């Protein structure tokens, strides 16, 4: 269980600084350090077991479906990395306490830092590949926050974004790779995977897996050509650079390669990709580092170079080289973290990081200078320091490899060359900063930093020395156990002695040392040579690429999404037609075998009228009023068609809807242009006409094919049960109010909602009200023709009577609440037309909104009523009663439902039409202030 707490404690620790934010800076730092410190202790408590070769593991089920368990696994490799993370983490916390200024949000910084720490621990301790990826991404995210911590700096924002983009992309590749691994192995459990090396290497997907996983590793570890983000991450506060960009995050990629070493390595492909990438990175990083004037820039490229070195070692496919890689991981973490911290102190004390300004600091801060120089010497590989040991091992290994065949000599040569530059930039770091005359224009006068700020550096330098001098004693067991884990088996023989006698690696070291110093001495020529090449700033290029990407995307979107409804409709219909092509081809015979009705002359004439009126609607579409009139003819013929083909209810409904629609169109047309100008390009007309023709043809064909085939439908049930089950003989109406009453409830809701929506549209509408008709003639003077008024008001009672008639008979004969409602509405609208709004408003006080609501409510509650008889919603009830004198009559709950329909229809129609009419009057609808 102790294992579980190791990542868990830092995770809880993210909250500590936030909780402690009210206390002093020291307290915040202490609170922050507390939980990771305990975790570190716990880590040491696991040491005996781990060093004895045990693999500790703990796991719980989390998302079994995705193969994701909460699984932690501690072996030597993980222990080593956890030690780096937690140990250096403690130092960084201490260092940051002094580094951060009063203006910085220290609790937030610490919180981010611990979040990152958690993520790193998660990676190294993961016992499940998916979980590993989970924490992998978490490091990208937390490092984004840390790099961008000084968000007011443009540098920081861009650097953070770049890092996130590159490592994020790598993370996605890694995910794919890990998923493939899981696919091949059949499990995401790390132990299982590590035991399946052969299976993976022999699988067809191995190259893909390898490339994907390596993409993840290379981006994270800043390997060429993905190295460019790392220097720009230097805009982060220095503790971040020291922690993330030397000791931990960039090592995550290395860790991954080491972790997967047993399953992925050992092939030629591995060698080619990994070692060549490492070699290139090593050279480029070392070369560029020399030319950086920025202190942290130099360190960043140096880091890239050393990461390249480790990668190269891992790529060489030998056990010893792997041991060397692990060893160098430790050493690099120690000297590079201390160098970054020293750089931070210098930056902190001088106010700049430009080495052209910073000179001769030896005088001002000898203590710090000593520390930094030791670290830099270690970086250069000076004997008696830790860097020297792993470098020797590296040289030795470069001499062993033969995979490149006759070109194998290149590896040691380039390795030496890389080290030459490494020595050169180390020399530059030492000479240029601490000697080389007096400082130039420093913003501050430098002096030694606070006592405690130096302690972390001192600890790390001590480590460098101790390892350098007593390697076997200090680091031997750790290296052994970590290497065993990385190799996934037995350890090779190696010696950690300082002195191996005069041999080629020593010669190479010597050459490198001398060569480096020579190069540094002649740096002026080299700088001049380098100055010929325009400096390609990765950040600028990256930003430019991003901008081009955004620009490109924007122009694509502007071209595609041009705001033209016509195009969208066209696409919609076009797509539908494309999809229809297949079925139309499949359709062998358009005509079916059902016997067809003969054409009678009236139907023919009606069809002709329909066709002519339809064409007239289209052809006159620019004269809008004429278009409306033609449209009503179409509607009329459609109603007649319904009547002709045995659907009286539909005919009635269509007729009433028709008139209301026409009134509505007239009301709206008043505020719209009366005519449509001619603007369609002939080509567009042809295009639209062809599409319209095709869809018309397709729909017509489908229709013909459908209605000439026999149908076996469920309708018999309704005909059989209408009377007995629904209590009505008009089957259509019984379907509407009973069998499918819910449709009707939905339908009146739609109507009611439309009324509300239209009211919303009308309220506060700014109007274009023409004072004359389209020909410029002023409107007629008389508002309400007398004859119309007189006749309309006399028709009103009659119309109401008719609607009562239609309503009451609906259940047994054509009719019903909807049609009745429309008739009532039309009658009332006719009063509006004939008498005007002012006249009506004193005489008719109906709140249409309430009418709509109560209509829906009546219908819905009628449905609910059946619950009290233990029946589902909308179960109808009917019965026949016998009263003296009056005789037998029927009562049905469906009538109450229909009443709801009736009320809604009236409410909605009038809410729409009357309010629309009121727009031009002083009764114009306004939004109620209802609070």
């Amino acid at each position, binding site marked *: 269980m102790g294992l579980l707490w190791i990542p868990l404690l830092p995770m809880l620790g993210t909250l500590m600084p936030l909780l402690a934010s009210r206390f002093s800076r020291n307290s915040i730092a202490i609170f922050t350090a507390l939980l990771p410190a305990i975790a570190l202790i716990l880590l040491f408590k696991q040491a005996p077991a781990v060093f004895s070769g045990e693999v500790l593991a703990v796991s719980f089920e989390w998302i079994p479906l995705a193969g*994701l368990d909460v699984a932690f696994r501690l072996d030597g490799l993980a222990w080593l990395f956890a030690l780096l993370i937690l140990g250096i983490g403690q130092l960084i916390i201490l260092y940051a306490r002094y580094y951060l200024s009063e203006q910085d949000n220290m609790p937030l910084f610490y919180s981010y830092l611990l979040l990152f720490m958690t993520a790193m621990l998660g990676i190294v301790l993961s016992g499940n590949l998916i979980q590993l990826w989970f924490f992998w991404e978490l490091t990208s995210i937390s490092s984004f926050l840390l790099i961008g911590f000084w968000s007011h700096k443009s540098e920081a*924002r861009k650097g953070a974004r770049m890092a996130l983009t590159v490592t994020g992309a790598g993370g996605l590749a890694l995910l794919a790779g890990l998923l493939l691994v899981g696919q091949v192995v059949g499990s995401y459990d790390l132990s299982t995977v590590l035991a399946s090396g052969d299976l993976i290497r022999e699988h067809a997907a191995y190259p893909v897996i390898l490339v994907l996983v390596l993409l993840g590793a290379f981006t994270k570890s800043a390997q060429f050509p993905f190295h460019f983000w790392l220097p720009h991450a230097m805009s982060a506060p220095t503790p971040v650079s020291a922690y993330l960009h030397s000791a931990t995050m960039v090592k995550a990629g290395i860790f991954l390669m080491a972790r997967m070493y047993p399953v992925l390595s050992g092939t030629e492909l591995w060698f080619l990709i990994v070692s060549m990438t490492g070699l290139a990175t090593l050279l480029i990083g070392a070369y560029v580092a020399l030319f950086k004037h920025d202190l942290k820039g130099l360190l960043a490229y140096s880091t890239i170079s050393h990461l390249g070195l480790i990668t190269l070692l891992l790529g060489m496919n030998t056990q010893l080289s792997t041991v060397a890689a692990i060893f160098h991981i430790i050493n690099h973490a120690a000297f590079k973290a201390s160098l970054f911290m020293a750089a931070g102190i210098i930056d902190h004390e001088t106010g700049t990081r430009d080495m052209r300004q910073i000179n001769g600091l030896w005088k001002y801060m000898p203590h710090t200078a000593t520390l930094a120089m030791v670290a830099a010497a270690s970086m250069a590989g000076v004997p008696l320091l830790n860097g020297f040991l792993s470098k020797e091992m590296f040289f030795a290994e470069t001499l062993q490899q033969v995979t490149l065949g006759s070109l194998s000599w290149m590896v040691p040569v380039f390795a030496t060359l890389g080290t030459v530059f490494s020595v050169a930039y180390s020399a530059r770091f030492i000479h240029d900063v601490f000697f080389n005359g007096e400082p130039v224009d420093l913003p501050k006068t430098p002096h030694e930093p606070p006592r405690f700020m130096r302690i972390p550096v001192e600890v790390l330098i001590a480590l460098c020395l101790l390892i350098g001098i007593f390697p076997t004693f200090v680091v031997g067991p750790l290296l052994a156990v970590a290497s065993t884990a990385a190799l996934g088996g037995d350890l090779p023989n190696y010696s950690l002695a300082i002195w191996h006698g005069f041999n080629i690696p020593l010669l190479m070291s010597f050459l490198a040392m001398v060569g480096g110093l020579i190069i540094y001495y002649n740096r002026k020529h080299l700088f001049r040579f380098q100055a010929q090449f325009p400096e390609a700033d990765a950040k600028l290029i990256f930003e430019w690429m991003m901008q081009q990407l955004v620009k490109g995307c*924007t122009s694509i979107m502007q071209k595609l999404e041009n705001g033209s409804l016509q195009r969208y409709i066209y696409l*919609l219909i076009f797509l539908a037609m494309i999809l229809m092509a297949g079925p139309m081809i499949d359709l062998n015979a358009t005509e079916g075998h059902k016997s067809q009705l003969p054409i009678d002359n009236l139907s023919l004439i009606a069809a002709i009228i329909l066709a002519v009126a339809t064409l007239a609607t289209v052809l006159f579409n620019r004269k809008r009023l004429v278009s409306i009139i033609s449209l009503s003819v179409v509607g009329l013929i459609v109603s007649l068609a319904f009547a002709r083909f045995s659907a009286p209810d539909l005919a009635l409904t269509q007729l009433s809807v028709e008139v209301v629609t026409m009134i509505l169109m007239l009301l709206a047309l008043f505020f719209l242009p009366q005519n449509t100008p001619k603007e369609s390009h002939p080509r567009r007309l042809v295009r639209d006409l062809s599409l319209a023709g095709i869809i018309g043809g397709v729909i017509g064909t489908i229709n013909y094919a459908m209605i000439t085939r026999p*149908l076996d439908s469920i309708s018999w049930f309704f005909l059989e049960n209408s009377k007995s089950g629904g209590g009505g003989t008009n089957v259509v109406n019984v379907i509407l109010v009973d069998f499918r009453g819910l449709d009707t409830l939905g339908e009146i809701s739609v109507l009611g909602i439309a009324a509300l929506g239209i009211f919303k549209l009308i309220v506060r509408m700014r109007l274009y009200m023409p004072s004359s008709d389209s020909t410029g003639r002023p409107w007629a003077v008389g508002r309400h023709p007398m004859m119309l008024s007189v006749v309309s008001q006399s028709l009103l009672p009659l119309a109401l009577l008719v609607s009562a008639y239609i309503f009451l008979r609906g259940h047994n004969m054509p009719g019903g609440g909807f049609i009745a409602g429309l008739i009532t509405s039309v009658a009332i609208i006719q009063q509006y037309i004939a008498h005007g709004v002012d006249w009506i408003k004193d005489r008719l006080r109906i709140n249409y909104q309430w009418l709509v609501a109560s209509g829906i409510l009546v219908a819905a509650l009628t449905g609910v009523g059946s619950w009290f008889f233990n029946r*589902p919603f909308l179960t109808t009830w009917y019965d026949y009663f016998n009263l003296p004198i009056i005789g037998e009559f029927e009562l049905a709950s469906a009538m109450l439902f229909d009443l709801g329909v009736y009320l809604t229809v009236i409410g909605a129609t009038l809410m729409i039409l009357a309010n629309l009419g009121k727009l031009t009057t002083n009764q114009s609808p306004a939004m109620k202030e209802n609070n």
Partner: protein
Amino acid sequence: MIQQHLTLLPVVFPLIMGALILLPPITNSLVRQRNVTLLTSLVLIALSIWMVQIASSGSIQLYYLGDWKPPFGILFVADRTSALMVLLSSILTLGALLYATGGDDKTGMFFYPLFLFQIAGINGAFLTGDLFNLFVFFEVLLIASYSLLIHGGGKQRTQAAMHYVILNLVGSAFFLFALGILYGTLGTLNMADMAARIHQLQPDEQALVKAGGLLLLVVFGLKSALLPLQFWLPRTYSAASAPVAALFAIMTKVGIYSILRVHTLVFGPEAGDLANLIQPWLWPMSLLTLAIGAIGALASPSLRMLASNLVIISVGTLLLAAAIATPQATAAALYYLVHSTLIAAALFLLADVIGEQRGKPGDRFVSARRVQQPVLLGTAFFVSALSLAGMPPFSGFVGKLMLLQASSLPSIASWVWPTLLISSLAVIIALARAGTSLFWRVSGENSATETPPLFKLSGVWLLLLCSPLMVIFAGSITEYTRLAAEQLFNIQPTIDLILQQGAK
């Protein structure tokens, strides 16, 4: 009694409450309207949790409207999937409503009743087992959405509404053509009955039914913003007022749900000659939808626009799952659907707050004054961004992960994985750009205007909280979606259940 009618309540309850709100005394005071609506939404959550609980046992709840048995009457079906969708809509509703109480409810009339009507329509679409009834509920939710879209007024909204409404009208026309074809060949409206009858067709009738099924794809594709029918979405969603946009986050999902439902039940793997009717089309279109969404995300000049494009990406992702058409992919899709809906909604709300606090530049990605609540909003943005980008530790990664796993057959993966992963990267880039512009690129301090009321932000947090919760409980949630997907694909028992009940 309530349990007996539980399946119906998510539809009828908001409908009745919506009508009640339009009547005095509630209609006379906005405060009363607020309270009643919030209460309604809480009750809806309780009801839908109950539904999910019942559904999770694996039993399919059937509700016979009017006591008419299938295939004759209208039938409501609450299985695991539909119960989950109803729960989703209820949670979303509460979040959006809480936000709306911050003042968006005042900028136009009838906000609350329209909201409830739309919920009724959405839930109806989720629950109904009858194709025509589905059409009716589509129309209910559409007309309510039209009215809500114009809430608050303004040029952009009107123009967006014009496009949205007209396109959907054409879409509805296609829906009715499709319904006509299906009734005219299969002779029934109940979806289970259709699935049963589809085997008895003559070849030519099959061609007709095929046409109907494909037309339905167009209709559902339009609702769900499938390429090339997605153009309306960014403008519409980014024009809508924040709570409305948040609610709209589920609208596309209604289309996707319908595809999952109809094209699995009627035209699914067991439809004989018509099996997997739409999959060949869905493949390229969903991949392209993902691509266009990613391009749009990169091109987005404002957070709302970005959120809209993220919705398109989620649509592409979900339809990709529908194209894969396996229970495994569908399980992933259902999880992803819930997550993406909630978080996209939260992002729309958040965009509004951020926009308000940044002054004139609003939520556009340009330098502006600092937001008043940088930590609060920054954290909220961070959570939503990570979720939507599919990055750990928030909910997006689970769905993405499962979908990748579901598409790991080499033939599929070579298409799906790059598209999914590259679009993820695009989202990461776009969101990183958004976050750094909105929170980090500040010029000057915020002149202290009043901070938004607590309630308003609680809506955002409610929705965002779902993300970590969905990760923590991912095990049981994915187990639920797995069983839901299996239920969705194992159609024969469903058909038997529905039609045997009818025969009784």
